[in-house]
């Protein structure tokens, strides 16, 4: 505003006044980007990077969240204590089960579905729309809905299975079935979304290539194996990594709502373990130590993600 009003006057007075203004403008230009960045840098500094360092510091103390009681430095003791606890053992094994089971259910199963919907072209839109729906519904709502459906006394699943003569067991209160129920529900939530990711990958395949192969007498099976699946591999890697990260983090919600980590720690995972240590038993040191271990795990997965993203870019060229 002021610039525009000033310009004609400055031009009339000649060069000196413009030169006199220059240092100020230069100084302003030097500060300007920092002013634009300030809110973001403050936010990330205070709420992301500083807490990360603070967590490492907390992991070496003993403290119960009581502000009147000072934290006591205990070195690496918390790590040993967490690593040797039965809760950690359960959480670690269960985390592997959650991640391991999610690969066939959430990563591989949607591939053939996506290829089929893709082969339908625009006619497949209804399938996409319906299967996408669970992505938008909050995990709390999903978990509570299934709590009602699977209710062992009044639930719909019991009534419907009863019609065909199957007795519904109490899935969520049995240590053998609870974790699989949560895995099934989280697959329900994310499968359609992964299918859409594959469809996005498939959309970049040139259909002329398929026509050319068919002209050469290639069968559907050959086209699938030689053309479609290889071109889908980068997307597959991306889906794999993002699903692993999703599984480590978001499964917290159904665990908290449906089982609280029980029965007998059979459904807890590392995230839920951290929550229990910190906010249920107020053992901040152990919670922070668990967080640092999770951090190491997630960094390993993220490094793999960066490597696969690079691959994806190369494929695009």
């Amino acid at each position, binding site marked *: 505003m002021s610039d525009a009003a000033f310009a004609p006057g400055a031009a009339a007075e000649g060069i000196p006044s413009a030169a006199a203004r220059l240092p100020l403008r230069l100084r302003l230009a030097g500060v300007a980007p920092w002013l634009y960045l300030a809110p*973001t840098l403050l936010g*990330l500094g205070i709420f992301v990077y500083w807490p990360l360092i603070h967590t490492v510091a907390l992991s070496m103390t003993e403290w119960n*969240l009581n502000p009147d009681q000072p934290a006591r430095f205990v070195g690496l003791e918390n790590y040993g204590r967490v690593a040797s606890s039965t809760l950690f053992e359960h959480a670690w094994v269960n985390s592997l089960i959650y991640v391991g089971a999610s690969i066939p259910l959430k990563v591989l199963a949607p591939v053939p579905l996506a290829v089929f919907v893709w082969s339908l072209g625009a006619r497949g839109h209804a*399938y996409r729309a319906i299967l*996408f729906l*669970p992505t938008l519904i909050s995990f709390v709502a999903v978990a*509570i809905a299934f709590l009602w459906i699977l209710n062992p006394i009044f639930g719909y699943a019991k009534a419907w299975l009863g019609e065909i003569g199957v007795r519904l067991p109490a899935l969520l209160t049995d240590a053998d079935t609870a974790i699989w129920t949560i895995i099934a529900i989280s697959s329900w939530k994310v499968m*359609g979304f992964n299918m859409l990711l594959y469809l996005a990958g498939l959309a970049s395949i040139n259909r002329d290539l398929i026509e050319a192969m068919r002209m050469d007498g290639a069968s559907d099976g050959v086209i699938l194996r030689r053309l479609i699946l290889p071109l889908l591999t980068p997307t597959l890697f991306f889906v794999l990594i993002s699903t692993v990260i999703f599984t480590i983090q978001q499964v917290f919600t159904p665990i908290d709502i449906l089982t609280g980590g029980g029965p007998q720690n059979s459904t807890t995972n590392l995230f839920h373990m951290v929550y229990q240590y910190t906010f249920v038993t107020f053992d901040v040191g152990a919670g922070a130590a668990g967080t640092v271990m999770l951090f190491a795990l997630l960094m390993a997965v993220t490094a793999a993600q960066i490597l696969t993203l690079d691959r994806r870019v190369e494929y695009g060229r």
Partner: protein
Amino acid sequence: MELSRSWRVIGHLVLLTCCLAVAAPVAVVLATALKSPSEVFQPSLWPSAPTFDNFATLFGKARFADYLWNSVATTVLRVSGQLVIALLAAWAFARFAFRGRDTLFAMVLGAMMIPHLLTMIPVYILMARLGWFDTWAALIIPNLAMPFAVFLLRQHMLAFPRDLLDAAEMDGAGPWRALWRVVVPNLAPALSALTIILFVECWNEYFWPLLVTETEASRTLQMGLREFLESDGYSDFGAMMAGVALASVPAVALFLILQRRVMDTFVASGLKG
């Protein structure tokens, strides 16, 4: 691609089964929500006399009016704040050359890789020290800086036609005016896509509100569902399902209105709900 007839039939059957698996729970929730208390425990899929009594319970007996208000207000404030702050930062990265720019941008990208669960304990302690528990500030402020949004908007700004910016500067517009008068109006598609993602993420957030809202009056809708489940949910499944439906309405409505855009947006971002 043309599949053989038998594969086509199998494919449709499998997909229809999947669609049914998605639709059935939705139908059960809606049916239960519309049933009268005497009918709730009968497994029919349609209520004989649909009623909105369960929704009335939510707003009368439970405090869903408070929850709804907290959710709407914090979501609107937080998403607007996130958009403005991310626009400013993205503009700094896209428009200016300054020392340390690439390092800072790498830090922003790095923050994108750090999930909340790794920072929650110190942020929780900070909220306690500031006395922010049970306030909107605790729900809004720690999440205002959104690295993903900065990244996405910067990409769009870099792709912005240089000529338009030059024309604006020739007309005497400084970087500030160029941002709000030229860049922002032309980024509408990217901004609306981003708004959808931020909205759904904030509306459905679970873990952080769980930590910082302790009083009933401060809870968001998602926390309200949890609270209701623990107090009355197991005895009053009708009202419980009404709550589930209520909490899901905004995101689903958004989807029904903007189907294509919502799906494309989520797929492009790779963010799982």
